């Protein structure tokens, strides 16, 4: 087991370096002038200002030298201070957010994390439950209905679904508004009297004993959570169904039934626990879907998280912000996949042997 984890950890640096190289490759397609222009907010009035930036940051150095500086930081020759450097945790300056990219991430991550967390619960719970039901009733009515449901769900783009539910539940009925909090609630949350323990509005509201704010936060959360998770219910349903169908054909299931165990016991204790092993592998896919999904979902619902920021920055061609955010999400994804692989190795003994 240990050697399996070590082998996985050894691939990790290769992946992370590869990811940074690919990102840098994208930046290096821009000319030094275009890249210098990314660092200045206005058209420089002074002649030669852009040339100064190019010289100062070595933007016309050979590509490998630039990559090294970009990763490790750039040493200022006059002051001797080290500036920037991805490995030093500096992802550059975000024009769209008027602050360093890292600070923007820090500011907006809690909102996205809260959304993703709430979305994960129905996603996993409902998806797996429906998948089991579908498999147990293979080719019968519930299976047919769920297959139609999953394949239809799989065909609805996130933004169409999001706009559709907004049209019904916000514009028509006024139940669930977009954004993250109502104005009055936002004022309270940002005031001194309210302690932001976790920056997750729903949890903080409970900890502060403000149930009106909890309800308000929840109301804003319902539609984005539904939008972010429905695609993955559909997906998890399909994966669980096919894995469950495979498991139900195994001899040990027949044996268990022959022993006289009830159908219910066989399904939920013997079959499901084994059928879920392959389902864990798609947890990585689900993470990708979440990271992709937040971009569209947050944009549709005007939800102030990382995703809506990326969309906004990309439209205004703020390449530095977009690259920084993408780099950050790739790290999240790489680490998430590592976690899933290790978890998979723990629950499925067959993997470790290979």
């Amino acid at each position, binding site marked *: 087991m240990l050697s399996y984890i070590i082998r996985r950890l050894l691939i990790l640096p290769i*992946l992370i370096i*590869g*990811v940074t190289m*690919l*990102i840098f490759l*994208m930046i290096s*397609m*821009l*000319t030094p002038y*275009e890249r210098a222009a990314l660092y200045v907010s206005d058209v420089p009035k002074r002649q030669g200002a852009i040339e100064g930036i190019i010289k100062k940051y070595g933007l016309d150095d050979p590509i490998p030298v630039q990559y090294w500086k970009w990763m490790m930081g750039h040493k200022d020759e006059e002051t001797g201070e080290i500036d920037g450097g991805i490995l030093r945790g500096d992802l550059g300056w975000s024009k769209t957010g008027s602050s360093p990219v890292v600070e923007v991430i820090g500011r907006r991550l809690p909102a996205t994390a809260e959304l993703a967390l709430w979305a994960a619960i129905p996603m996993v719970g409902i998806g797996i439950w429906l998948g089991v039901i579908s498999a147990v009733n293979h*080719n019968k009515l519930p299976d047919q209905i769920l*297959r*139609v449901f999953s*394949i*239809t769900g*799989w*065909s*609805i*783009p*996130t*933004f*169409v679904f999001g*706009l*559709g539910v*907004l*049209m019904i539940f*916000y*514009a028509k009925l006024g139940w669930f508004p*977009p954004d993250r909090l109502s104005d009055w609630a936002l004022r309270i949350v940002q005031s001194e009297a309210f302690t932001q323990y976790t920056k997750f509005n729903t949890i903080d509201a409970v900890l502060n004993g403000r149930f009106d704010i909890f309800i308000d936060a929840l109301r804003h959360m319902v539609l984005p959570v539904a939008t972010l998770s429905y695609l993955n219910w559909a997906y998890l349903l399909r994966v669980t169904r096919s894995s469950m*169908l*495979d498991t*139900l*054909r195994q001899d040990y*299931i*027949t044996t268990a*039934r022959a022993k006289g165990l009830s159908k219910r016991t066989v399904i939920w204790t013997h*079959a499901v626990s084994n059928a879920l092993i392959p389902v864990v592998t798609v947890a990585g896919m689900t993470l*990708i879907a979440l*990271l*992709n999904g937040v*971009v*569209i979902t947050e*944009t*549709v619902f*005007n939800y102030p998280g990382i995703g809506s920021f*990326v*969309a906004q*920055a*990309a*439209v205004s*061609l703020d*390449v530095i912000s*977009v*690259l920084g*955010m*993408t780099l950050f*999400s*790739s790290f999240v*994804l*790489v680490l998430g996949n590592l976690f899933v692989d290790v978890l998979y190795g723990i629950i499925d003994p067959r993997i470790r042997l290979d």
Partner: protein
Amino acid sequence: MKILKKLLTNPTSLIGIILLIGFFLVAVFAPQIAPPPENARDTQMIPRDGFSTTPKPPSDAHIFGTTEGQYDIFYGVVWGTRTAFRVGVVITIITTTIGLTIGSIAAYYGGWVDEVLMRITEIFQAFPYLLAAITLSSVLQTIYGRGEAGPLMFMARILAFLTFGHKLSDAVNPIELSVLTGMLAIIAFGWMTYARVIRGNILTIREQEYAMAAETIGASGPRILFRHLLPNAVFPVLVIASMDIGSYVLNFAALSFLGLGAQVGYADWGQMISFARNWIPSLANYWYIVAYPGIAIVLFVLAWNLVGDALRDILDPRMRGKGNSV
């Protein structure tokens, strides 16, 4: 043939096929269904009826209504089928070609070539693809924005040749360039699955008894490759990849929706729906700006998925038996 027969007898895939034929007919007969204005320079640009900023509900002149800026929704939905087919088919062809090439080179040479190619594939997979595509398209837009783009412009021309049938020597116009930018971004992060599947398939099949048997009875190298390895390794991938057209159309629509694909006014469903972002509080009145293009895209993707789902069941031999012991 057997596959086709099964597809036509399965009710869900039959619905899918009928829908696809319908969309195809709409795309072919677009000039008859929604005639473009006589002086139109580019028929893919939706004609405008005035410049008023509020959308107008369906009427006799505009049966699906108009968006803000008075773009005719019916025209956009009809001509959008052409965009959908073009974008989906071309992206699928190019991504599978890249995937097949890389995957089979890796499987054929093995050793360090395999190692390097597979690591590169993994690196591309380490990105959430939509974010990666957003990143690449914002970089590409900056580059194409300056007009002179060297080899990248040549790539755009090849893509314009495949997508719009333009000559390679022709300069690409800015309207089409924005469509191509979105496509390039999706292609760059779309080929990895095919590469891995092909590689895996070739490696497995090479070890199969029938491949060895062919070798034992003295079949020539090319005969084994073309007669035994490739059909079994490549054909299923090609069939399944062709069904990914729907999801590529979906991804492209998402880019357009964010403002990174087709330009405003282009007959593209995602772009048309993005108008709705400005009218969210009053969507109940302006439902038609989401509903018509939205239904078009859902049906289009659904059609591919219905056929694809049936195909997967047919091609996966484990699904053929109906045994169910519980």
